[in-house]
């Protein structure tokens, strides 16, 4: 059961995990963007965001609380001096995680985690383009879907016919392959074969004719 297993242990002991997150958090604050695995980035997000919120209130006490989590005085002073000012208007959500593909070697999901307010390229363009883009996609989507669906309907019946005939052929082939059933059914088959031989002879021309019709339709 998953009851109360809220956070990822990352395969480490508590002390190892805390030390690693402290190092990663100070790296993120000092360099604004770090590349890591997706699981670590998600764990780091829940670790640094409360610290950044804490940094908005610049008191000796909050500095000491943050230092106890970071264990790096340069990162603490950077956080309270520069990051806190930039982040002042933002009500949480200070970090951004972008996936970059899988790592060679262990195929781990890699990503970039960065401080949102330090990526100026993303900041300017998102605020301008966000609203009209969404509307356009919704309206355009409905119009495009309708004709596409009609075309699909027209295309489907032909495809279904083809697949049906193909399946029928496969079923016959499968029956031929299975030896166990054959031995059991041989007795029955011998009886039936006389009757079915006549029936098949009648069926086959009909099948061939129907296939020719389909080819003409195409």
């Amino acid at each position: 059961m998953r009851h109360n297993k809220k956070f990822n242990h990352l395969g480490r002991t508590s002390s190892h995990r805390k030390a690693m997150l402290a190092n990663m958090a100070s790296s993120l604050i000092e360099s604004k963007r770090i590349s890591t695995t997706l699981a670590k980035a998600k764990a780091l997000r829940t670790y640094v965001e409360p610290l950044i919120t804490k940094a908005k209130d610049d008191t000796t006490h909050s500095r000491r609380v943050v230092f106890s989590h970071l264990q790096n005085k340069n990162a603490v002073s950077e956080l309270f001096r520069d990051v806190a000012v930039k982040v002042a208007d933002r009500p949480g959500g200070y970090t951004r995680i972008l996936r970059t593909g899988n790592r060679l070697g262990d195929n781990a999901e890699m990503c970039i985690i960065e401080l949102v307010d330090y990526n100026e390229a993303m900041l300017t363009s998102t605020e301008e383009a966000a609203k009209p883009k969404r509307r356009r996609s919704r309206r355009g989507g409905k119009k495009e879907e309708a004709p596409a669906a009609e075309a699909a309907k027209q295309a489907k019946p032909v495809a279904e016919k083809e697949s049906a005939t193909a399946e029928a052929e496969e079923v016959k082939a499968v029956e031929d392959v299975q030896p166990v059933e054959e031995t059991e059914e041989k007795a029955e088959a011998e009886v039936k074969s006389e009757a079915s031989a006549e029936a098949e002879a009648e069926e086959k021309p009909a099948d061939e004719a129907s296939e020719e019709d389909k080819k003409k339709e195409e």
Partner: protein
Amino acid sequence: MAHPKSKTSKTRRDKRRTHYKASLPTLATCSNCGATVKYHHICPECGYYRGKQVIEKEIAV
């Protein structure tokens, strides 16, 4: 503790594994350079994500 009475034969083991299949990831084309990219991933060719330059990529001369 319960133990297996006999070794699982190669056939039995391989038959079990016939259901282990690799699935194809959903793919899209990059809006900037047209390369094939995974959804929700930065383009590995040009470093764009949702129409914006996210990573600086050096262009080979």
